[in-house]
């Protein structure tokens, strides 16, 4: 009896951790590639203190602008013809020369000179189109923030919106520009973008009425409308108004302007709703309709959720198949301690006690280092496993992507030269990127401190559950069996493979084929004498 109660408690805990609380947009993230240089293991940025972060973040963009205006090389003021020359280069798609000429114009003139703002705008756009997205964002930020020429504002915001499709400086563009500015009247084609982000910021800060007021200004036929609906639905779900949340998720999903990514987020949310209602069969059907980028962290996370759903459906073969797919090299950095727990539970349910204990040992072996780091009370940010886990998703994951993008763009400055060096743009960009990388490192360091701690707490909790499970397995081995409880053979016990049919069977030979990952089936016999198993 005691065993059963312990098991029930354990499994309830597992279910909660598998699905978790309703999640906001941050959890439906693009994949993070941990392999790239700069954020992986020891090569990651050093931890930073919050005070230092505050100092730098507030002043960085201003410093860059000030440097622009003063001109680093004290050359004579460029004539208005330089701007026109730059304009011609821009419209000839010669962005390299356009950027150099525009920079020369703004670096050697006062901000009051004619066409100064346009020069900044064209400089920003040229840089962005050459792949220097962050530098472009900095100049476009200046144009949009200063608003000395209101007619450029919509154009600048359109270019900024394009930058949102890739990793970007959220503090600069969202917090400081969009949220912190009153743009006044904006044309419809750009106002939805601004209102959506302003509303989202209010929603995250808990200002629901303000958020709704802003979302209401988004036209029904705009792509930001279903996104706003989704954000509101998440808020409803968090507030335990699930019926309303479901309705809004479904409206967002069916909206003709909803993009593929958003539709998948809606499907994922609906599947989670059904999971929480213990409607596992239907949840699995909706999970199956979710499309995520192949071999991404999102896909691994989806697999894990499907594994839990299959587990509750008592489809242990499928559960193990999905968990086996997570062993593929593409997911080797995916942090999921619960997969050991789930595998052990499956083995225990099928009365394979030695393999069940072996999974518990594998967990301990895999997480020895981080658990030791936690016990030694070292700075958790220095532990590679916890760092990777922390960087896996959410806003911090996006920050890590942005940091990698900065490193790539900074490296690419070396390949331009020519007019960029002559005008000082090369030096200016190095300064902008140096500062941005420094800021990004500081922000990441600060965010990592909280996130690694959260991950460490989760890991300790899993370790406790593993100990409990180990005890459960030990008890189950010596459980007394009664002859009258003997289990009858069912269809599930039939592990024979037909020679022909609509399905092909490829036995796994230590080689992961990407197209097979979601088709793994674990052929294992049920050794339980009675029908009880473990609930």
């Amino acid at each position, binding site marked *: 009896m005691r065993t059963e109660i312990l098991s029930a408690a354990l499994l309830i805990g597992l279910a909660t951790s598998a699905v978790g609380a309703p999640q906001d947009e941050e959890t439906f993230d693009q994949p993070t590639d941990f392999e790239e240089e700069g954020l992986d293991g020891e090569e990651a940025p050093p931890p930073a203190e919050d005070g230092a972060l505050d100092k730098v973040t507030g002043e960085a963009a201003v410093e860059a602008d000030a440097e622009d205006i003063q001109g680093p090389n004290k050359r004579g003021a460029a004539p208005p013809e330089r701007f026109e020359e730059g304009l011609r280069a821009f419209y000839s798609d010669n962005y390299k020369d356009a950027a150099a000429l525009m920079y020369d114009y703004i670096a050697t003139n006062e901000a009051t000179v004619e066409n100064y703002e346009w020069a900044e705008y064209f400089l920003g756009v040229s840089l962005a189109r050459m792949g220097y997205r962050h530098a472009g964002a900095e100049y476009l930020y200046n144009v949009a923030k200063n608003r000395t020429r209101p007619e450029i504002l919509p154009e600048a915001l359109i270019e900024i919106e394009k930058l949102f499709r890739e990793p970007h400086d959220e503090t600069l563009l969202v917090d400081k520009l969009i949220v912190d500015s009153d743009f006044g009247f904006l044309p419809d084609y750009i106002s939805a973008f601004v209102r959506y982000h302003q509303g989202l910021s209010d929603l995250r800060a808990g200002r629901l009425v303000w958020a709704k007021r802003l979302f209401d200004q988004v036209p029904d036929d705009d792509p930001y409308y279903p996104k706003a609906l989704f954000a509101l639905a998440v808020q409803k779900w968090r*507030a335990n108004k699930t019926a*309303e949340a479901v309705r809004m998720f479904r409206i967002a999903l*069916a909206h003709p302007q909803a993009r593929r990514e958003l539709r998948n987020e809606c499907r994922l949310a609906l599947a989670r709703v059904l999971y929480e209602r213990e409607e596992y069969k*239907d949840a699995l059907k*909706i999970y199956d309709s979710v499309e995520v980028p192949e071999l991404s962290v999102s896909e691994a996370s989806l697999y894990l959720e499907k594994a839990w759903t299959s587990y509750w459906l008592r489809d242990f073969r499928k559960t193990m198949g999905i968990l086996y797919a997570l062993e593929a090299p593409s997911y080797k950095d995916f942090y999921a301690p619960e997969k050991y727990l789930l595998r052990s539970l499956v083995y225990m349910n099928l009365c394979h006690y030695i393999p069940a204990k072996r999974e518990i040992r594998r967990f301990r072996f895999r997480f020895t280092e981080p658990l030791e780091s936690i016990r030694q009370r070292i700075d958790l940010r220095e532990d590679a496993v916890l760092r990777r886990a922390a960087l896996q998703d959410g806003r911090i994951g996006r920050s890590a992507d942005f940091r990698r993008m900065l490193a790539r763009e900074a490296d690419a400055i070396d390949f331009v030269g020519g007019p960029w060096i002559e005008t000082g743009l090369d030096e200016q960009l190095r300064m902008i990127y140096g500062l941005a990388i420094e800021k990004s490192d500081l922000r990441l360091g600060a965010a990592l401190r909280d996130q690694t701690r959260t991950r460490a707490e989760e890991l300790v909790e899993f370790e406790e559950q593993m100990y409990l499970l180990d005890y459960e397995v030990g008890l189950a081995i010596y459980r007394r069996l009664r002859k009258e409880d003997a289990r009858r053979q069912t269809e599930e016990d039939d592990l024979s493979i037909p020679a022909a049919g*609509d399905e092909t069977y490829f*036995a796994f030979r230590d080689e992961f084929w990407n197209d097979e990952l979601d088709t793994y089936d674990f052929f294992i016999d049920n050794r339980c004498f009675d029908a009880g198993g473990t609930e």
Partner: protein
Amino acid sequence: MKRLLLAAMLLAPSGSAWAGIEEQLRSGEIIAVDERPYRMIHEFSVSGGVIPTDAYYLGISLGGAYTLHLSDIWAWEAFNFQYSANVSTDLESELLEAFEVTPERDPRLQYLLTSSLVVTPLFGKQAVLNKGIVFQGVHFALGGGVANFAGDDADDAFLPQLSFGPGLRFFLGQAVSTRLDLRGIAAFDAVADSLEVEFLFHSYLSFSFNFGKKRATELGDEELVDESTGYEKLDELYPGSDPSVVVLREGAEDDDED
């Protein structure tokens, strides 16, 4: 000494004990169970190939076939017609020029008509330059039919023939596949009291076009398919959440406060 032996016997695990431990350690096997990507049903193919008969002429074959697939393994190639356009090699003219002799002409193959049983025991996939996957099957055919031979002076002769050979199919899609077949053909000719056997080798490349959805062996075998999508349960649990029955504008009418 006897005691030591007894102790050793008692301590040594028996065969069945070892088997038990191995059994305990064996913990399942992973098998990728894929839906069969392509199902052949009614296959029509056109082909071209070569029949290297003897030193004096070469048969260039053109033909077509229809195959009825009974299952993923068994198929009946109902007919396979191959016309042989015979092309002379230069040997005959060289002999005439050099030695002023003309070889005696044997009757030449005109066409083959065969019906075969085809078995496809091998099915698999291959990685193409690590960028794509191509599915293929290996089959073996055994059949019989007639071979038509004609000579300059003789009348047409229809000879019974047996053919056997392997083939390889690459799937280009559900409707189209390409296959390479190698067939050994034995044509039997009763001359006087003896039986002469003419051996031919035929290799040909085909493009196959696949039609139909249901095999002849599957007729009436309706399988119940669960077509629910999961959203039905949402309708049931949250009535009115179906967007096709609600007003589109959301959020504005909510009266939630901070």
